[in-house]
């Protein structure tokens, strides 16, 4: 088990399978009933973020579409279990807090070298700790 420190953005604790996105994320271009990314040429195109630990650089898209996209996933129980972000901005941060998804940033760079798709990861935003189990 490897532990890494991080910084809380949105409170909560979650443990799930990791999914890593190279590209910025827009929740509007995901299927609400599956959590599948439908954005063309996205590194997660065709993959689902539902109930996973989503590791990604940052958010994109207008405030309106970001919040609505995450809300639609929430209605279907298909939001990510937690999010690990590198470059938070106000729109993403407020969307995560309002939809109550745990989210952290400022993660120890060693985490990014260690983590792989499919690893089981535990995010404890409240204590600022991530573990690869």
């Amino acid at each position: 088990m490897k532990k890494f420190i991080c910084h809380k953005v949105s409170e909560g604790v979650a443990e799930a399978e990791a999914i890593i996105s190279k590209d910025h994320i827009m929740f509007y271009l995901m299927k609400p009933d599956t959590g599948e990314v439908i954005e063309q040429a996205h590194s997660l195109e065709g993959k689902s973020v539902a109930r996973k630990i989503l590791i990604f650089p940052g958010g994109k898209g207008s405030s309106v579409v970001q919040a609505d996209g995450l809300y639609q996933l929430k209605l279907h129980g298909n939001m990510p279990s937690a999010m690990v972000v590198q470059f938070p901005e106000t729109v993403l941060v407020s969307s995560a807090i309002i939809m109550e998804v745990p989210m952290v940033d400022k993660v120890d760079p060693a985490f990014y070298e260690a983590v792989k798709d499919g690893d089981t990861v535990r995010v404890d935003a409240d204590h600022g700790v991530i573990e690869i189990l």
Partner: protein
Amino acid sequence: MKLTQEQQDMLDGKYGKGTAYAMKIQVAIGECFDAPRMVPITRAHVALSNQEADLWFCEKLLSEGAHCRIAPTVNPGFCLDYFTKRDMVAPEFAELMRRTHSAYKSIGAQLTYNCTPYIDTNVPLFKEVVAFSESSATPFVNSIWGARSNREGANSALCAAITGFVPEYGLLLDKNRLGDILVEVKADMKNDYDYHILGMLGKKIGEGIPVFTDLPKATLTKEALRNLGAELNTSGAYGMYHILGFTPEAPDLATAFGSKDPKRKVTITNEDMAAILDEISLEGNRPIDFVMFGCPHFTIGEVQHIAEKVKGTKLKKEMWILTSCHVKTMAERMGFDEIISEAGGAIVPDTCPDQPCWRHLNGKVGVTESPKCAYYPQRRGIHFVIRDLDTCIDAALTGEVK
């Protein structure tokens, strides 16, 4: 984050559950960005969207007793009266707009339904601290008026309107307002439309605060600056930019960059402008079904220009001009509304192109001068050729676009 007694009382619920919820969200945002404290705002603009999440959030705050301390202006949904009278909108969407209207009215918003508050109805002063959402609004109030707003989301701006405070971070601080990208514009800038296209070059400009140079002063109209900000946030994410020798925080290069070297230098050429247009527009030389203007909302000056062009003619195709209700009233008063109606066009107040009231345009091809207008309605099956304003007006008259 250090809170004042009043802010702590808000968080602890002494001002009601809704205010406590709004404050909790703002404190979390502040802690994320290491804000040391919260500071008061004197204006807000909420990019209401008339979408489910937006309504859910506003109704949730309202049901817990929240009320705006600072009455925010709001973005358009669609004009209920106009579209229900003409039977253009499905009942469930009319109901959504009715609920949105009712929720924002009850929570204490100014029901302006206009996306250009920085021109008409909510103009901040130099250094005024405000909370503005809406992609064209945040860069305008920061860059042109020198007011201070972060790039708020619709929901964080509503929280700020309720508490009357924002966490102090980002563009509220001098050090974060300096330019870091030098953008030399060698392309020919002739009119407001060229600023739409310039703004679409976000990918080439890169992330940061651009400082534009070589822009001809005579072309820097309020419409051009509105277009530039709207498109910078369609092609990227920009809370602020500078124009050398024009915007208040960029009198010279040393001030604009804080006496540092830019991290990037970019030159924009006519070829860049032509290439991006190719990428974002349908091909021309085709018949079109309709013309749409007013994303962001058109000014009375633009309405007048169109009225003069179409006076005494009959349009071959539908022409929709979206404006604020103030501009609509002014157009009626000045006779432009009558001229445009007689030609077969319509000035519609309080309405956005990305709304369910445009279902009759599904599968059709329009022409517009705004790339933002072309971008968002794609998911409604509406596609556009993008051309300058006069070419679009000609297309309405002939039914074809070059």
